């Protein structure tokens, strides 16, 4: 069945069924709210909602979950821009430029860049999903352990770009992140590592607790220093709309397009995820920008790059799920089980036997992206009021939400202690000038690099040189090297042009 016929069938399925449409709207809105509140994430929303979809019609269930997925990934940008606290891991990079722009009195402008980039990234990857799903999925299968290892190394090279001012502290931070990720039962050899005899630690440091501890609790402790002070009033001169002004996107299309491609591509590769995509896209935008020095000061390119990339991952991650039955990230793994429980196993058979399900997924994904944009336009006035709230009301609520999120993710009180400990650590790191972004990169990518390296070595019976016969891996490693030495290369190039 052609892609067009599929999406038409999905459109009929969704539009003729008002309940499905309603679930999609509610799911998308719920996703945005979950994404926007630090401590609650889209992944948490999907895992909480998943059991309820088991009793729904399969298409209604999957539609609800897709709404939460799309809304949840993009929702993180609101907190990043407004509070300098990322709403989820995918929105960490959005803090870098989103928050400075909001502080300069242009929160609407920052939000409009982020939201519009999310829409475009989501739609572009959706188009790729519909047109080229099966071809791309088979491309993804070319990636073995060596290739994932090399991709992880490429992501790690971003550390260099993230902290070009103080490289040593950047590396310290990345290594702390990698060590944090190693705590717990080793996934390959079931040996507990760094647990110091505490069985509670054998479960590892949960991602939500680590992330929210470092970023939310740490940032709150830093900002609490200014408690009681009146917040900077929002510039009333600004256009109070998130619909981008005419010409606002001039010169940004190249960044949005390349970030969307990066995001879609990373989505296709199972297990890499939104936060890595956003970081790589941010780095790529900075490296290829004409004005790299403006990054970190509220530069539009620094907002659109991560936001286009993280939403593009969603469409990309649906590709291996639908065509091969291999989930692209943790949320798509849950979407899959929402289908499996109804006896609909994702994979090539779905395209033969259950075209209405495939069509519904296509259509509801595209519709969710558009709905997300519409909902932002309708409700952003209320979100923006957050800025006028005094911190002594806002922070306790955020803290409570973080505690709820840290607890709900694993139903384990111990994770709350991890959250608190990471909060104090984040505060200390802030004061000794250790940047947090490389830590998250180390935390997220450390296991990718380590586990794939070990698997690759084992699959090749200890032969390290086997990587030489993997051209994709070698190519990615070469790119990692270029990225790592880019600051040196570009300063050398600048010198040369000055000499001429």
């Amino acid at each position, binding site marked *: 069945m052609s892609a067009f016929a599929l999406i038409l069938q999905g459109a009929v399925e969704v539009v003729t069924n008002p309940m499905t449409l309603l679930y999609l709207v509610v799911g998308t809105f719920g996703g945005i709210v979950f994404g926007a509140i630090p401590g609650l994430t889209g992944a948490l929303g999907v895992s909480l909602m998943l059991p309820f979809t088991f009793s729904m019609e399969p298409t209604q269930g999957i539609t609800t979950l897709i709404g939460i997925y799309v809304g949840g990934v993009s929702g993180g940008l609101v907190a990043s821009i407004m509070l300098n606290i990322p709403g989820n891991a995918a929105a960490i990079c959005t803090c870098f430029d989103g928050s400075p722009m909001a502080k300069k009195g242009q929160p609407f402008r920052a939000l409009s860049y982020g939201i519009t980039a999310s829409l475009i990234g989501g739609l572009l990857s959706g188009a790729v999903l519909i047109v080229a799903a099966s071809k791309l999925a088979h491309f993804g299968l070319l990636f*073995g*352990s060596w290739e994932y290892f090399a991709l992880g190394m490429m992501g790690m090279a971003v550390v260099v770009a993230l902290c070009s001012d103080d490289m040593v502290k950047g590396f310290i931070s990345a290594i702390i992140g990698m060590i944090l990720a190693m705590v717990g039962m080793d996934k390959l050899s079931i040996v507990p590592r760094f647990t110091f005899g505490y*069985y509670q630690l*054998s*479960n590892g440091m949960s991602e939500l607790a680590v992330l929210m501890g470092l970023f939310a609790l740490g940032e709150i402790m830093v900002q609490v220093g200014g408690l009681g002070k009146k917040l900077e009033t929002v510039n009333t001169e600004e256009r109070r709309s998130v619909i981008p002004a005419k010409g606002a996107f001039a010169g940004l299309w190249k960044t949005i397009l390349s970030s969307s491609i990066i995001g879609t591509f990373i989505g296709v590769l199972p297990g890499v995820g939104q936060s890595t995509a956003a970081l790589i896209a941010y780095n790529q935008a900075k490296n290829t920008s004409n004005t790299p020095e403006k990054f970190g000061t509220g530069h539009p390119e620094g907002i659109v790059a991560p936001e286009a990339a993280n939403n593009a991952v969603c469409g990309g991650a649906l590709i291996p799920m639908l065509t091969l039955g291999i989930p692209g990230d943790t949320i798509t793994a849950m979407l899959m089980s929402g289908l*499996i*429980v109804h006896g609909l196993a994702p*994979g090539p*058979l779905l395209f033969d036997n259950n075209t209405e399900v495939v069509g519904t997924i296509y259509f509801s994904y595209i519709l969710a992206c558009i709905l997300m944009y519409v909902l932002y336009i309708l409700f952003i006035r209320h979100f923006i009021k957050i800025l006028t709230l005094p911190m002594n009301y806002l922070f306790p609520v955020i803290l409570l939400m973080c505690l709820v999120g840290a607890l709900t993710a694993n139903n384990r009180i111990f994770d709350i202690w991890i959250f608190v400990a990471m909060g104090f650590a984040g505060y200390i790191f802030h004061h000794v000038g250790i940047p947090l972004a490389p830590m998250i990169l180390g935390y997220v990518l450390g296991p990718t690099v380590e586990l794939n390296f070990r698997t690759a070595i084992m*699959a090749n019976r200890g032969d390290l040189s086997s990587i030489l016969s993997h051209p994709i891996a070698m190519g990615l490693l070469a790119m990692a090297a270029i990225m790592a030495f880019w600051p040196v290369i570009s300063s050398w190039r600048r010198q040369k042009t000055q000499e001429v």
Partner: protein
Amino acid sequence: MKKMLAILLAALLVLSLGACGNDGTAEGDPKTSDAYPEKAITVIVPFSAGGEHDLTARVVAGRLNEMFGWNVVIQNTSGDVAATIEYMNGDNGDGYTLFMHSPEVMSSNYASGLLPEAYYKDMIYLGNFVYDPLTICVAADSPYQTLQELLEAAKANPGTLNWASVGSGGLNQMNAENLWNIADVEFNYVPYDDASKGRAAVLGGHADVFHSFAGGAKSTVDSGQLRVLAVGSEERLDYWPDVPTLKELGYDVVTGLTRCWDTHPDTDPAIVEVLTAKFKECLDDPQTQQQLLDMGQAPTWMTDEEMHEYGEYYYGVYSDILARLNAEE
């Protein structure tokens, strides 16, 4: 009016006191088990939402709620070793907090020293829901059409074919080593951190054999991307009538994973009886069976005794393999 209210309140108080007293002397009292369950039953599933354990648990919970009007709630957590310790250390003997953990996992964790002997011995298994047999799969374009051909190739080049599975040193590797032992062959064991990554590796030609539970391989096999050469169940699976069992092929082993709910050793035996009976009734119901089969899970009832025997058998197997693996190192 006020008097009436006072009397009512007093009556309520006495009644609730009575209820408390009842709780204290509940041990062995048939009345408690008659009224069981009086409130929601929580089942701790130490695996993430959406996994095969979780889906099995949720289907059974949904059927229990529909059939008996119970309120069974699934609570996911992660890290099965930590969760087992927490469950066994906790005050969970009232029959309202159950746990999802399989005897062979317990055996493997006990054999490798991660869990103490008392847990292994004392855990009460409330019957078994499904048996998910191990399957041996190859990619559709692989040259090996039968298990015989695969094993002969492995014999000709010992330790060169890549055997993709999840994690090393645990249940999966010991099951693989056990099978190789029985067949007298040697593969190169390659652990992945997640079953779907192992599957992707085999589909992409990075590994030769995919060693997976049937439930996790079913959709990929049914769509023709993977070819299943053998299953580790006692009898052929209803949904793959053409796939031979290992036993039929001459390898005397039944290998796979039970998915069941357990309860704390302190639980009142009368409640254990009620739960076991109701679970059996639920599993015998055709609708439950159909829902489980739809997900690729084969309903297979076992009693607590059979579960312990099964665990005992695997404890022996795993101890031998661990001793051998340690000797090699």
